[in-house]
């Protein structure tokens, strides 16, 4: 952190790597369109990079970054409200989205292609989970779908925390084997066509 504050880009790369996905998950609650989501995430990190010399460590870095990302998301949603919606949405769907995120309801929606990619990826992952041995399936489900901590899972499954950690990793590894080639193929396709990876990512599923 201190090195990054002094302008060391490689040090900031590590912060980016570490928090990018978390921030993306956060921003994803506000912005559904993948391209716009990536823009907002990048904007948040740029703001953080610019403001980093002023960060005094009064709060944890992630808390500080989290606030920047929330502000960037809110600004994006506010700006989106002034634009013509790019996706038709019936009133029922709109109300549902309003309820989902309260005051900061989603203004952008995934395109049908993006939704298809995500659904297909989710289907592949569900199948991978279904094929897992019982102990791995139970453990990873408690973690990913119920959000339990390792300790809580250890109590429920009556095994040491270290075993929980190992099982979750093995489950992820197994899922990863199912999706690895798909992700790799999509990225290769993207590079070959000269398109950004974010544009091409789901093409392998079409």
């Amino acid at each position, binding site marked *: 952190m201190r090195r990054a504050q002094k302008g060391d880009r490689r040090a900031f790369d590590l912060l*980016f790597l570490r928090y990018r996905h978390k921030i993306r998950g956060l921003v994803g609650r506000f912005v559904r369109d993948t391209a716009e989501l990536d823009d907002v995430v990048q904007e948040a990190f*740029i703001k953080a990079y610019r403001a980093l010399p*002023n960060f005094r460590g009064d709060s944890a870095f992630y808390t500080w970054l989290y606030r920047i990302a929330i*502000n960037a998301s809110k600004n994006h949603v506010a700006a989106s409200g002034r634009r013509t919606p790019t996706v038709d949405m019936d009133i029922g769907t709109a109300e549902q989205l309003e309820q989902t995120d309260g005051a900061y309801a989603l203004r952008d929606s995934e395109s049908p292609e993006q939704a298809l990619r995500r659904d297909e990826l989710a289907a592949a992952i569900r199948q991978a989970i279904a094929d897992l041995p019982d102990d791995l399936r139970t453990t990873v489900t408690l973690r990913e779908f119920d959000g339990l901590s390792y300790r809580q899972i250890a109590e429920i499954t009556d095994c040491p925390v270290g075993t929980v950690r190992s099982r979750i990793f093995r489950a992820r*590894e197994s899922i990863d084997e199912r999706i690895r080639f798909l992700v790799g193929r999509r990225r290769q396709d993207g590079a070959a066509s000269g398109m950004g990876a974010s544009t091409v990512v789901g093409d392998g599923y079409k």
Partner: protein
Amino acid sequence: MTDKVKEALSAIMDGEASELETRRIFDQIAQDDDLRETWDRFHLARAAMADEPVDSTASAEAIASLWDAVDGGAGEESTETPEGAPRRNPFGLRTGAAVLGVAAATVLAVWLYPVRHPGGMRLPVDPVAQVDSPATLVQQATWESVSAEDRARAREYMLQHLRRQSMANRAHPIPIAKLATYRPQGQAVRNDLQ
């Protein structure tokens, strides 16, 4: 890349790794493309399970894009700090209060010093030299002991100072120099010597 390292990655994702382990792994991630891609895919799978928009861009590309944007000047105008974070206002409330305190104390010193010397003899007043600290001056005289005319003059002076200070949006020069000459016309400080 060993399974042990990947297991640590998995634990970091869940916030179940120690800070030491996290730092060690991230040092490796910076130098290991496979490890970085595994990290990305683990998150991609999680996003899909959570019904979130899936992350399609590899971290390496995202980093390159980030620096391109930074070098292109993106966000340069942004100096904002997040809500709730302390702002580094060069002339914040505390500094303003301190300047105001010094100004008030100095005003009091200039007007009150002769009163404290019976016989009405006015000494050569050097406001700067006379001021030990605002606290000392507050002990020397209270606001109530100042005449209404002098109080009004002091208020007016401080208001002027604050107005200039807020317009300039930076630390206004402490008004001691001006104070030495702030007297009704024909009644300059040096005249007090007579």
